[in-house]
């Protein structure tokens, strides 16, 4: 058995050398093939989806990859609960049980800064037909450092304004074709007075996940911190304007206050700000429309949330995992992934292509709220030590939602709380 493995391994080396030499002579670079023995590589990728259709897609792609890669024994997709995803992943890493590949959201900056992720740029550029230049520049920034890409941004979902047309009609309200925040707030308040339903809901905010409020404050030209993440932006005039708007919205019941549950997709509110990918929750129980984010005092803008997938340096199979990642994300498989996740590839970003697999939104809607938005969209705030910054700022911001709160004073305490972390 061992002799057979050694022979196969030697043969693999010879083949690999031949392939590299052959490709070199043809002028089309291809990453070095693995020298691992057949069936000796088991890959594990952590994901936060438990959607059976999505997991089936991943498994299907992995099965196709295995057919041409004898070294692969198994590829498993480890579905971890979203709420505890970061904690579980870091615990696995600390416990010496790190996956080979991992989805990541706001943990990406910590992983990149710590050098825990394998660089991808060279491999992806050298993979024939991968077409690295097809990646949209605006979506690679969060997963890059010093010009090197460390995670493939497979999901780029802009935030949009969802409207429950039935609730608006019930309240005798009508939204303009290019809504502003003031208009949304006024209609929201009127809807609450007329129907008892909520006005606008920033989905997932729940007076805790304040980073989702970037979907509002960007309309006032505010930022949580500056571009290099060293200066707190909460004490700016723009941020004060945005939070004054939010406080007013809360006090006029245009936005439900803390501790009040209202689910737009269950028909509880007139509007919600949510990612386009949430359209899957629309079950047809009410008439709806979707718009880009409302215009703020600083004009039109777009915000998007991202997820990436990278290879952990601690993996015993970095080369094989990187190779599988390049296969998982090549143009053909990226098109398959696009049915669930707005892709980072310009070639796939057309309303028609996105609509081919989307039964909830039309090609025109997808063109308007995804394709037209992504090139200039800004990501949700992301920084190293995301959980600590989130908790410190949340603790300070809790005072914002109490009666008579001094907006500027509260925002100043947010900066006091997170400045030491930003400077680390």
């Amino acid at each position, binding site marked *: 058995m061992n002799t057979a493995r050694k022979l196969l391994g030697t043969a693999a080396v010879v083949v690999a050398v031949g392939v590299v030499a052959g490709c070199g002579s043809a002028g089309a670079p291809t990453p070095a093939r693995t020298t691992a023995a057949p069936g000796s590589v088991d890959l594990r990728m952590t994901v936060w989806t438990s959607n059976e259709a999505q997991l089936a897609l991943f498994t299907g792609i992995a099965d196709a990859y295995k057919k041409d890669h004898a070294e692969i024994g198994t590829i498993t997709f480890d579905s971890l609960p979203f709420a505890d995803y*970061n*904690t579980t992943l*870091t*615990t696995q*890493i*600390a416990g*010496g049980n790190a996956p080979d590949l991992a989805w990541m959201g706001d943990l990406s900056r*910590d*992983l990149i800064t*710590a*050098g*825990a992720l394998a660089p991808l740029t060279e491999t992806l550029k050298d993979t024939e037909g991968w077409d690295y230049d097809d990646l949209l520049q605006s979506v690679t920034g969060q997963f890059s450092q010093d010009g090197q890409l460390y995670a493939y941004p497979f999901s780029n979902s802009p935030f949009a304004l969802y409207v429950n047309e039935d609730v608006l009609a019930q309240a005798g309200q009508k939204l303009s074709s290019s809504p502003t925040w003031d208009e949304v707030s006024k209609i929201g308040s009127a809807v609450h007075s007329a129907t008892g339903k909520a006005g606008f809901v920033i989905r997932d905010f729940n*007076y*805790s996940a304040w980073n989702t409020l970037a979907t509002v404050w960007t309309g006032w030209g505010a930022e949580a911190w500056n571009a290099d993440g060293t200066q707190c932006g909460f004490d700016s005039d723009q941020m004060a304007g945005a939070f004054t708007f939010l406080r007013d919205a809360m006090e006029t019941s245009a936005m439900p*206050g*803390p*501790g*009040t*549950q209202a689910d737009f997709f269950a028909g509880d509110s007139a509007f919600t700000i949510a990612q386009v990918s949430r359209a899957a929750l629309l079950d047809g129980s009410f008439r709806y429309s979707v718009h880009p984010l409302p215009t703020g005092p600083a004009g039109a803008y777009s915000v998007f949330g991202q997820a990436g997938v990278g290879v952990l340096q*601690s993996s015993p199979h970095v080369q094989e995992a990187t190779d599988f990642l390049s296969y998982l994300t090549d143009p053909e498989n990226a098109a398959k992934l696009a049915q669930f996740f707005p892709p980072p590839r310009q070639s796939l970003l057309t309303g028609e292509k996105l609509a081919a697999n989307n039964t909830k939104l039309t090609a025109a809607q997808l063109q308007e709220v995804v394709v037209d938005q992504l090139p200039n969209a800004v990501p949700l705030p992301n920084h190293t*030590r995301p*959980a*600590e910054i989130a*908790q410190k700022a*949340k*603790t300070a911001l*809790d*005072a914002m*939602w*109490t009666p008579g709160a001094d907006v500027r004073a509260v925002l100043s305490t947010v900066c006091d709380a997170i400045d030491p972390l930003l400077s680390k």
Partner: protein
Amino acid sequence: MTAPTLVDTRGGMSADVPPRGPLPQRLFWTTGRRDALTGYLFILPQLIGVLVFVIVPVGLGVFYSMNDWNIFTGKMQFVGGEHYAAALSDPQLPAVLAATAAFSGGVVVLNIGLGLLLAVLLNRRFRGVTLFRTLFFSPVVVSVVAWTLVWGFLLQDNGGINAVLEAVGIPGANWLQQGSTAMLAVVFTQVVRSVGINMILFLAALQGVPGELYEAARIDGARPRTIFFRITLPLISPTLLLTAIITIVGALQAFAQIAVLTEGGPGLSTTVLVYYVYQQAFAFNDIGYGSTLALMLLSFVLLLTLLQWQLRKKWVFYES
């Protein structure tokens, strides 16, 4: 008849006593040693458990508390007492300790007080007493997370509690979102869930009090209040000690209630020490500082338990 042979107590023996042969070898497995071995074998599983799940983790905790561990790269750097110094100057820690004291104090007082009251009431004979005992005990067997999730919905601003209050004309509060009421809400849900355990322990203790003592007291003209404080309480004081230790340790270790209901907020008003340890170690990935705080919590628990154990001599009554 011959006279009995006498032993020469001065050292010699009478001529009739046969000479003593070589001394028999003493057996290693004496009864005492067998008993001791049996005892050790019986406690061996527990000893292994204590070693693996207590001694080793505490030792690792001490080790981690003196190191900075970058869990993303696995690199560890010795920092000595740096984390202990950081704890002393942590601006959030006073608020966390205050919340811990408020939560533990509230839970302990209400849990023991209500548990004893319920036990005294349900120790009487009346129709449906078994049903009431079952009802009050039933929350204990419910999963703490499920219990807390349900109460989370009930305590929302537009939740069931406020709907009931509104129906009877009382304005409800935003229980979990206001610093003044969040701790009350967390303590309340914890007490309602766990008071059944103390109630059952007190019931068992009450039923062990000899009836003739009550009878004698009544004949002597003692009032119910006197009977309770002079007979009942002293005789169930060992159970009071047990419940006090269990409740205090349990209150200091409460985690799920905070994590599910309030996530420590608003502000730091419900951030108890266990939750703070979790945040530092697992959410912020600062294992070193988290371990330092965990050791601090361990010290509190040990100190309070030892204190109660010493004070028992002053108030715990033993019949013997």
